[in-house]
């Protein structure tokens, strides 16, 4: 068995490692250092972080609900990519199947929406 097909893969790994190490090490040297409140806080998608006492505590279960909903659609996207790539060879059959899949996810979405899972309060 020849290993030649794997050479590009190894090269890619190498490049990725070099890039990561380079980015992390070079940042502190060339960037300006201006410490402020926003920089010290936890990153939460640009939204003001949820106030928690030091040492951690309970926080609303709603975050988890939203997170779970996000994962459902995330997985949907993951499925859509390979389908899109193979769309031509799958043809009409693939289209219908994917439609069914989306409908199924949509059923769950409708349930969540109607039962108030998307309302924050």
């Amino acid at each position, binding site marked *: 068995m020849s290993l030649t097909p794997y050479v590009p893969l190894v090269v890619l790994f190498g490049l990725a490692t070099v890039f990561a190490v380079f980015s992390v090490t070079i940042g502190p040297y060339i960037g300006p250092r201006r410490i402020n409140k926003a920089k010290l806080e936890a990153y939460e998608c640009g939204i003001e972080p949820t106030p928690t006492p030091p040492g951690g505590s309970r926080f609303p279960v709603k975050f988890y609900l939203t997170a779970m909903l996000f994962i459902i659609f995330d997985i949907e996207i993951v499925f859509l990519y390979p389908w899109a790539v*193979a769309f031509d*060879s*799958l043809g009409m*059959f693939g289209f219908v199947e994917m439609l069914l899949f989306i409908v*199924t996810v949509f*059923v*769950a979405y*409708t*349930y969540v929406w109607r*039962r108030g899972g998307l309302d924050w309060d």
Partner: protein
Amino acid sequence: MNDIQLPPIDYAALLPMLIVFGLACVGILAEAFVPRKHRFAVQATLTLAALIAGLVTVIINRDLEVTTIGGAVTIDGAGLFLQGIILVLGIVAFGLIAERRLERGGAFVANAAHAADSDGDKKQLNEAGATEIFPLTLFAIAGMMLFCVSGDLLTMFVALEVFSLPLYLMCGLARRRRLLSQESALKYFLLGAFASAFFLYGVALIYGYAGSVQLVAIKQSVLDSDKSGVLLAAGLALLAIGLLFKAAAVPFHVWTPDVYQGAPTPITALMAACVKAAAFGGLLRVFNVAFETTSWDWRPVITAVAMATMIVGSILAVTQTDIKRLLAYSSIANAGYLLVGVVSLGGAVGSSMFYLVAYGFSVLAAFGMVTLVRDADGEATHLSRWAGLGKGSPLFSAMFTIIMLGFAGIPLTSGFSSKFALFSSAWDANQSALVIVGVLSSVVLAFPYLKVVVLLWLNPPGDETPTVSVPGYLTRAVVGVGVLATIVLGVAPSWLLDMVNSAGTFLAK
């Protein structure tokens, strides 16, 4: 790039599962759009319709033998019979799940996640229960149906998760004794996930050995392959652990008593009847199709597990003081008897399936009757509370006696005919040691059952003896069907035995 070959799909063969899955999705939509006060009626009708339609299509398909979707699903006689069992027992269990006369709002609460004893939890005590229970039941049953006809291990895994996840949730919905219920749900979930991991790891190792996850291909590579058997043996062991967990075999039984006790009784009934059927359907298929040729390797181990299961289950049942825990240990011991059927391979498939039917009906009736013995705090499950019930409720006690005698294997009940059929086919397959342990263990196991009978009839009622609720027509039907089946299958079982024998065995090509 090659064109992707679409695997042929036999929709007719898949129809029963498609119906149940599809109507479960419709149930979710109904949950979203039907006004609150009509929801219960709509959901109950929908569920019953789905189960009956599924059963009808299974019956129409009865002579089908086909492998479809690229080997992911194998429809064969045994598989269809198992699907039929699951649907029939599911229809009976539906009666318990839909019962709303025994308790205001049914046996379930609307929201499993409220912390026990919190304000929200107290408030929902008097509210109508969750109607989501119906689509969840449908998903679970459809998952079990798929589990029994899976042609490859990955489909099997998916099916396993599909039927497990709704069950984890349903366990936490009990209206009374919320703490126990939530505890059982969490335990079942964590341990179930643990066991699933074993299963998946086993699938991976077997793929490493056979280069395929299809049961038929695994069988072929066992015959052909010159690879080291270590991968195969380790993979098989891990796979078996995942399945034995669901089947509640010792030492993977630890969750059973707690979960059976904590879960709402209708769900416990569903687990004891349908999940048992599905789990053993899967076990029988895996061992009969994929690993039959390597039986020299696994037989000693599964034999030991079966013996341990029979012994531990029956002996621990003796010391139980709670009827639900007693039934849980008895279900463990019965898992041991069914494992005897698994070890005996081909010849015992029919009698194992017969056993599943007989046991399923009896256990549904038993749990159905457990829901009837109530006091102000809900079901009174402690055995001391059952003392002397025969005085005030002779009909109830007589029926419960029949069920107990059935479990004890007294002749002219289904417990005897099923054990007799199973043990004689095992003896025929040269598993005499297992049969001897089985007979001994069933002798021990008879004792706790008869203790309950004596408790019912021969003990004076205490001050605290609860009343037996007048059952609603649904529970009445469930109990009636269960008791009737126990007697009919005990007195004249031959028609069903003919049916399981003519259903044939698992398709292995």
